């Protein structure tokens, strides 16, 4: 009779109408608004609730007339999980299966989340909320930045520059003509250049090639030093990879000569680039 009134079709104040069939009644055992789990519509009902300890609440038909005394807070369920289950069983002994089963399920769930809460408190883990809008915005920005970055080109350019500046020493033996041509081209370009570069490279390899510690890490001085040192490295045993020594030494000599010549030329070039 009661369910016909407050049930699915009509109005129930505990029913959360916007979402799917939740019942806000605190005595509800499953939380859903169903015919079998509505505490108002069932005359024989039992719930587990916890206020610092789990209690089994029972409602029987004899007390339906006294709403204040309707729910009997019977049993203080013990902390031991299995004993508590037994207690539920013995108290609800002749009750319908559904209520017994749901009571036990609810109790299990409650103990589990209590355990989890205690664990979280111990772990000291801070939970930082994520905002979906912010996340999508960041993802989009990242994609655009990736496209703008043109990583492959940048890496290749950087590697070629390092090759030109000779940070690799004498490992790569390329024909000197093309090298000179490339250098000349670079000089012409740098003369017409006015502005400084945007990129700030950290002079990793400059540092690496320094044998003695340097106080300042400016572009010019390090470049000069490195060019000088590179010739030292060449004279010492370097890591030539199986190129014939005759060839290597010839190229080395020629290149050493060439580089001495260009040392003055590259200086102004490097200065203009740094300023």
């Amino acid at each position, binding site marked *: 009779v009661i369910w016909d009134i407050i049930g699915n079709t009509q109005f129930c104040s505990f029913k959360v109408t916007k979402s799917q069939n939740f019942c806000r009644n605190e005595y509800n055992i499953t939380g859903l608004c169903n015919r079998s789990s509505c505490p108002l519509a069932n005359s024989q009902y039992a719930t587990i609730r916890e206020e610092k300890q789990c209690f089994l609440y029972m409602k029987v038909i004899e007390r339906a007339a006294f709403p204040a005394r309707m729910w009997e807070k019977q049993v203080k369920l013990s902390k031991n999980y299995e004993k508590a289950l037994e207690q539920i069983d013995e108290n609800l002994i002749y009750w319908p299966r559904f209520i017994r089963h749901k009571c036990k399920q609810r109790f299990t769930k409650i103990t589990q989340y209590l355990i989890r809460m205690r664990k979280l408190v111990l772990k000291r883990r801070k939970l930082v909320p994520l905002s979906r809008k912010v996340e999508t915005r960041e993802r989009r920005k990242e994609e655009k930045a990736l496209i*703008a970055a043109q990583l492959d080109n940048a890496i290749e350019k950087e*590697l070629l520059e390092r090759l*030109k500046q000779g940070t690799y020493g004498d490992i790569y033996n390329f024909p000197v003509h093309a090298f000179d041509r490339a250098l000349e081209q670079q000089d012409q370009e740098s003369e017409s250049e006015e502005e400084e570069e945007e*990129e*700030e490279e950290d002079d*990793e390899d400059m540092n690496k090639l320094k044998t003695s510690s340097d106080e*300042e*890490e400016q572009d010019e001085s390090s470049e000069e030093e490195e060019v000088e040192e590179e010739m030292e490295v060449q004279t010492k045993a370097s890591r030539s990879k199986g190129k014939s020594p005759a060839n290597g030494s010839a190229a080395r000599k020629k290149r050493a000569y060439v580089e001495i010549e260009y040392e003055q030329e590259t200086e102004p070039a490097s200065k203009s680039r740094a*300023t």
Partner: protein
Amino acid sequence: MDITEVSTSQDGKGKKGKKAKKKSAEVDGEGSAGEEKKMVKSELAVAFPPAFSVSEIKNKQRRHFMFMKLKQEKRKQKMQLRKKRRKEREALGDKAPPKEVPKTIENQRVYDETTVDPEDEEIAFDEGTDEFSAYFNGLTNPKVLITTSDRPRGRTVRFCEQLATVIPNAHVYYRRGLALKRIIPQCVARNFTYLMVINEDRQVPNGMVLCHLPDGPTAHFKVSSVRLRKEMKRRGKNPTEHFPEVILNNFTTRLGHTIGRLFAALFPQEPHFVGRQVATFHNQRDFIFFRFHRYIFKNEKKVGIQELGPRFTLKLRSLQKGTFDSKYGEYEWVMKRHEMEACRRKFQL
């Protein structure tokens, strides 16, 4: 002329879009026979009564149709403008004005006063005496400890392993609930220079804490787009034990400089050029992209690179002065979203 035009066009729309399009195409054809821009404009003005905008039509089909037509008109005008300009440029030949550079976000970037000038003495002095100076002077060799948050899942574990192969002298240890603050003194005792903690969320790595150990700065990053090695297309064989070179791009400001040095100190000072491997940290609009490649010089003008190793992107969230300390730490820089992300042209790194 006006009234009849309007009525015919509207009638056509009333029946079917196609018919109306045909009619309007005819009208357009007549219109564009004369002078280009003016005719089109006047034709538009002629076709619609004044103070008319496309959004005022209530009928969705008609509104859509009118909007499409408007778009077409605009595109046509743009093409005509472009053609004209190109003709002018060709006509002028050498005397033509230089090509206009399109505006990009990098072009329009708000000038950051903390941009590092390569010759700034103060900065050079700072760098000579900061926490990384020991590394850059060749005194210490980097030794990295990689760990995760509690209970790492498969992806994170694999990511850690791959990171360990990329960074030379790196060790992976698993954390069973140990507090970071207690690990740190142990690490210092064992001569580690770096502590890297990869935080995980929903079975995927999403955060990284990079802590320079002997009392150095701690940086907290957000990690995104992690691609493991087997997900890479056209990748090479696994990286060897050679020390890779490091490329750091676009770290311009003071903060960027610090972060750049933080990354640089992860790798040993002397790269093995024989190994031909390079690790790149490229900063673009405050996102740091990490890539690991093997390169080969085909001749001195061309280099080929082949990607091996994992890739990920980082975004700096905070930088702390001392080692990792969430409660009492002194934050040198914290990402404050409302202030810093308000302007699209302003970046911190």
